[in-house]
């Protein structure tokens, strides 16, 4: 995509503003994006996963990954006690080593956002609330907006919305575009992460189209999954999304973020994702402003591996607080 010369009133280059003019234009734009070759993207992801990260670069990666974790609890059984315990862990992932960086945010259901906001007051750690009838997204626009308002009123600094995958798969792109726009407006100053639920979109071509759709509609982040559908985040899917935010940057000059979520449990996995961030999107994305991990058990392993790097030997898992 060439560097833009003319910009529309919305601030987008003319070509992109034109793409969202109506349903037909949007469909034409999304279907005109270059295809993604499945074999090729999976080969590239597997190839990059063989990078060997050692010593100082490994410690840097671990600390950076800790600072990118959206520590998540999204269960029917969640309680205020559970959320407070998670917040404490986000503040001090390793109590024995206070210099360990805090997590980026805590991610909860909207009714528990208020509790998390209180527990994290003054820490600088964000509170992300899922919204729009997470995880299915199956309800009316009014209900989704009310859900978002609940989160924002409670003080959530980040909103993780889901797109209507049914609408996407039946080709009603404009409906999703407008929905993201209205949620963005309802979210106000809160950062909007748009969950594509790539496991339900099935093809990489769809992942690329959904990524562009979310970016066009104003999503600050594109996020792979709810964690409730298998497969959740995978490396190749994240490659496609990292490529999309990079291409978006080239086209508009704006930096947007990516959040893989679900299934990332080990330090080794996290480092593979960071390598992809560095080499596919670019080093400027190596920041919690532009890259997050949606995870729960990952933080524990990162803390254990951090200790291993500093102590020169492994620690038992009991040295890390359970959630």
């Amino acid at each position, binding site marked *: 995509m060439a560097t833009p010369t003319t910009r529309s009133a919305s601030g987008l280059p003319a070509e992109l503003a034109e793409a969202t003019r109506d349903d037909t234009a949007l469909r034409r734009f999304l279907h005109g994006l270059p295809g993604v070759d499945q074999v*090729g993207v999976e080969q590239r992801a597997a190839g990059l996963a063989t990078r060997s990260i*050692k010593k100082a*670069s490994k410690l840097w990666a671990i600390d950076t990954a800790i600072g990118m974790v959206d520590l998540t609890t999204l269960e029917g059984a969640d309680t205020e006690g559970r959320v407070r315990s998670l917040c404490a862990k986000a503040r001090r992932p390793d109590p024995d080593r206070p210099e360990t960086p805090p997590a980026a945010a805590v991610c909860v259901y909207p009714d528990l956002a208020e509790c998390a906001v209180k527990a994290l007051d003054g820490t600088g750690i964000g509170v992300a609330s899922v919204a729009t009838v997470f995880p299915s997204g199956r309800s009316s626009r009014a209900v989704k907006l009310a859900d978002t308002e609940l989160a924002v009123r409670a003080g959530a600094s980040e909103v993780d919305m889901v797109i209507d995958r049914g609408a996407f798969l039946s080709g009603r792109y404009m409906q999703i575009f407008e929905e993201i726009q209205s949620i963005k407006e309802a979210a106000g100053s809160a950062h909007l992460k748009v969950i594509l639920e790539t496991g339900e979109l099935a093809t990489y071509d769809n992942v690329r189209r959904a990524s562009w759709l979310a970016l066009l509609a104003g999503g600050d982040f594109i996020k792979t999954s709810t964690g409730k559908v298998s497969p959740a985040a995978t490396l190749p899917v994240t490659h496609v999304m990292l490529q999309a935010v990079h291409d978006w940057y080239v086209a508009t000059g704006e930096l947007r973020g990516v959040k893989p979520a679900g299934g990332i449990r080990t330090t080794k996995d996290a480092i593979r994702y960071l390598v992809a961030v560095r080499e596919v999107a670019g080093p400027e994305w190596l920041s919690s402003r532009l890259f997050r991990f949606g995870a729960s058990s990952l933080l524990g392993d990162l803390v254990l591996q951090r200790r291993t790097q500093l102590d020169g030997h492994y620690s038992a898992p009991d040295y890390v607080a359970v959630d």
Partner: protein
Amino acid sequence: MEPVWEYAPAPESRDIAGAKPSYRMFVDGQFVEGAGEPLKSINPATEEVLTEVSTASPSDVDNAVKAARRAYDKTWRKMPGNERAKYIFRIARMIAERARELAVLESLDNGKPIKESRDADIPTASAHFFYHAGWADKLEYAGLGADPKPIGVAGQIIPWNFPLLMAAWKIAPALACGNTVVLKPAETTPLTALVLAEICQQAELPPGVVNILPGAGDVGAELVNHEQVDKIAFTGSTEVGKLIQRSLAGKGKKLTLELGGKAANVVFDDAPLDQAVEGIVNGIFFNQGHVCCAGSRLLVQESVAEELLDKLRKRISTLRLGDPLDKNTDIGAINSAEQLAKIRELTAAGEAEGASRWTSPCPVPERGFFFAPTIFADVQQSMRIAREEIFGPVLSVLTFRTPDEAVSKANNTPYGLSAGVWTEKGSRILWLAGKMRAGVVWANTFNRFDPTAPFGGYQESGFGREGGRTGLEAYLDE
């Protein structure tokens, strides 16, 4: 704050290679001192002498060929196929077991990055022995006659770009079909072939079935012209291939040649562009571009040329050049000073003829033979860099407007080894593959090798096929 994340060095230990101070040639089941002038094998990444290797004299060649002849007459040709298979399987397994040692040794001797020797060269070499072991007792079902017979003694000469893999490509089918072998590895990269000799010895392969004679072109010439050699298989430059064909004319020896190439990688405007970029990078920068089937000419449709080149330059800037033993190195060392000089000569010609040069800003080590990845845009068919094989990390970019123009430009070369096509349109892939004068056409991928797939060329890229059922034909008398 601009975040920075440099990867710490992650070198594989060179001790794993178990490189010895000196190596000897392998004749009639024994390692023996050759009477030729010993050669010094250099680590191209440091220019240090790795080890000394004895080379063959004319009488050594004669002894090796006679040993191969004896082994052929007395044991190997008479041995039932299922018994031959046991030896070949054993060699395959032993290569896999010693994979790490072989990978490190290969990277030291050749300069290729450890990730390639570890993930491509050595596993594929082992796979070739496995695959051909399976054929040894099934040759009558290969479609090459009811009772196909071996040819006899095969003289095999291989290049320095994939030292162990090329040895496997040559030796495995020859043995499976019941032939015995005298193989000459390239003078700059003889070490892994000599470890393979050790493996043959440990596998208790009957003496004389495989003989390995290090040396330069004179040893090759001696082998080619030896009257008791029944078949010559050569992989290397077109120039030497022509010399061999000339000297064998009228002598009744069988010959297969796998020579140079100047492959076109054709990218249409509907291609999956990001993966095309990966394929182009893999096509020309894999193994520092020391690949006869390298996609050294990029033919891109004009309507996407600018976008593709932007993406390509960005991607190439992320390639890591340096110590071949570092696990994160993407581009290692050029194999020899001589090859480096050739690459420099041709790139200088490209600049002089008016093509626009872009070279990756990656840091280049001061010692060793290195050449940073380079792209030439605005290349015309008439320029040397569009016609001659550079055999280095240098890509020439040409554009086309229509599919017919793409085909005529792609075929406008005396070579014809491989080609690539990138499009989401299946019908166009089939149409183009039918029009390309190339032995291999890759669709939406590049440089994929498998023992089951035949490989070989058209025109000045040679004749005969290696791999697959078709590859057996080169080692059987119908």
